């Protein structure tokens, strides 16, 4: 699904990612953990195609295609979804209207007919129920005046409707209280299947209490310094990031 080889990225001349190697297969859930400033968010933004990042080396293949060559909207239409750490407000644009434009852009790309209003509403209601999204939020402008939890839930709801192949969740747990976290995690779990790959980018282990990853990677100073299974996350929770980073230096 996703094959990152020796990816090097700089921002404003400063090297942020210094040779990332990571392979994510269909159906797998990978957690990318690391301290602040390790390059986690940069990695998710580069995958989604945000401007302002200079790829200075390496490659990213998505389904065998060169992801870095694709425009952001093309990546989205090919099934790459980024759940934003800070979802953006778009005043005056209705949530459902926005999502319909997105779904139909994706469908058009796939050579499918656009959904009409009735079929679309059916789909939306079904998905809203599945991720426990309050229907009243659908009628409002995109993220406008939403609480932090509502914004994150809206991201998961959009993901449910768009059914991506690769979902990158950028610090989706940040700023959530424990109830909101549980609801968001349940949403993600309900979207787990053998065709969909998920990357959870997170600072804390607590999200992984609710979403069990297949692999855990520790990102530090622009490199993946340690990989393991979910026990690695537990160890990090107990001992902090310090021991991983120290060992890296010693080796």
């Amino acid at each position, binding site marked *: 699904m996703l094959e990152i080889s020796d990816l090097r990225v700089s921002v404003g001349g400063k090297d942020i990612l210094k040779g990332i190697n990571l392979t994510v297969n269909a159906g797998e859930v990978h957690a990318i953990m690391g301290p602040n400033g390790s390059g986690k968010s940069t990695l998710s933004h580069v995958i989604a195609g945000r401007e302002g990042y200079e790829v200075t080396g390496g490659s990213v293949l998505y389904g065998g295609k060169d992801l870095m060559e694709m425009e952001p*909207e093309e990546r989205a239409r090919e099934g790459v979804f980024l759940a*934003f750490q800070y979802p953006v407000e778009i*005043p*005056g644009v209705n949530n459902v209207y926005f*999502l319909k434009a997105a*779904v139909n852009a*994706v469908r058009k790309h796939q050579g499918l007919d656009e959904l009409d209003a009735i079929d679309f509403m059916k789909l939306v209601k079904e998905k809203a129920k599945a991720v426990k999204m309050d229907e009243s939020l659908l009628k409002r*402008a995109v993220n406008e005046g939403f609480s932090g939890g509502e914004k994150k839930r809206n991201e998961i709801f959009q993901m449910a409707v*768009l059914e991506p192949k690769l979902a990158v969740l950028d610090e989706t747990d940040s700023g959530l209280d424990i109830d909101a976290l549980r609801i968001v995690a349940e949403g993600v779990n309900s979207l787990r299947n053998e065709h969909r790959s998920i990357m959870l980018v997170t600072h804390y282990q607590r999200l992984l209490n609710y979403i069990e990853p297949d692999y855990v990677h520790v990102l530090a100073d622009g490199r993946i310094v340690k990989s393991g299974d979910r026990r690695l996350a537990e160890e990090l929770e107990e001992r902090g990031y310090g021991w991983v980073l120290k060992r890296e230096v010693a080796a």
Partner: protein
Amino acid sequence: MAASTDHVEDLVGKEYEHGFVTDIEAETAPPGLSEDVVRFISAKKDEPQWMLDWRLKAYEHWLTMQEPRWAHVHHQAIDYQAISYYSAPKTKDDGPKSLDEVDPKLLETYAKLGIPLEEQKALAGVAVDAVFDSVSVATTFKDKLAQHGIVFCSMSEAIKNHPDLVQRYLGSVVPQGDNFFAALNSAVFSDGSFVYVPAGVRCPMELSTYFRINASKTGQFERTLIIVDEGAYVSYLEGCTAPMRDENQLHAAVVELVALKDAEIKYSTVQNWYPGDEEGRGGIYNFVTKRGDCRGDNSKISWTQVETGSAITWKYPSCILRGDNSVGQFYSVALTNNRQQADTGTKMIHIGKNTSSTIVSKGISAGHGQNAYRGLVKFAKGAENARNYSQCDSLLMGDKCGAHTFPYIEVSNPTAKVEHEASTSKIGEDQLFYCMQRGISEEDAVSMIVNGFCKEVMKELPMEFAVEAQKLLGISLEGAVG
């Protein structure tokens, strides 16, 4: 799109109806303005003496006036003696012979707006030669209005057929000497629309796109007068979403609205005159005086405008709230791209008791566009318990454009309540990226964000107009980002 065919049919029908082609072909006034030219225009239109006198009075006034300089716009000096103030309507031989001869870029825009082929031809100035059964359609329309006693005709017809109404109301809201351009218009106005809705009648249809094409033929000095009698209602739509080309660079229209007791007028405009090329060359100067008079108690006048065209737009649709409890509203979207300049806003003059006004202005600037909101809210001494709410929002795209706000408030009555809110925002890269990450193209994302920004104004437009206006905003901003 049966309605669109109607416009073409009306156009064709109208030309014959007035015998333009046979009567005044090949007659054009020489450039320049003089008393003789005013007399020539009046004579050409076969006007009565009182109309000529009215024009001459305006002309004399104009001679004493100076072109105003206070607007936040820049253009080369206009040579008023280089303009021809009367030219016969174009004949079929002047225009392109077919759509093949028309600028493909223009056709592309028409296609995006979904304008039917026949109408495209008319807009692009292609001779429409087909013989429609047009007369019957136009007649049906007019019959229906006549049944309600509504008069809806050209200004020229009104001068001939309803002299009493014209004499009573023309210039009663915008006097001949009101301002430089209004005086010029009063002296040389070419034609325009006249509406009278009798007491107690609710006009059964939007008076509208009927004139969509015809309006383009009324020339550069358009004059509109709408009178709504006691307890009556009308919704009037002016303009066109399709870009209209015109070789006349200066447009100075005057629109007067009169609402008597308990009457309501809703006036909606979509203005999309040619803005010029990317450097602003050749665009229209649109200097318009629009004013409504809430003359009777409990009357209401509502202006809604979407201004996307013209090189320079300079207009302030205003309300004089004379009657007690009268209501004035102004909803505006003004978009400037490339080198376009707009200085627009409103005046709300509160005179009567318990009068209220609402101003919602949305300015969008892109490219090198300059957008100014200029508004006056005035409370006269006797305006007990009057109130105003103003909201001015600006949206900037890129870093070469400008947004300016000049709100003036004059209060002479201590019971007045005024609220003013203003905001300036930039279309964020964050917003665009968010949309694009969901698969939405950049173009569609811009259109969506801008339309969201303008929503409060768009919802005031009649449904069909609103859909067109939304598309128009998107198209007008093409290439503005990235």
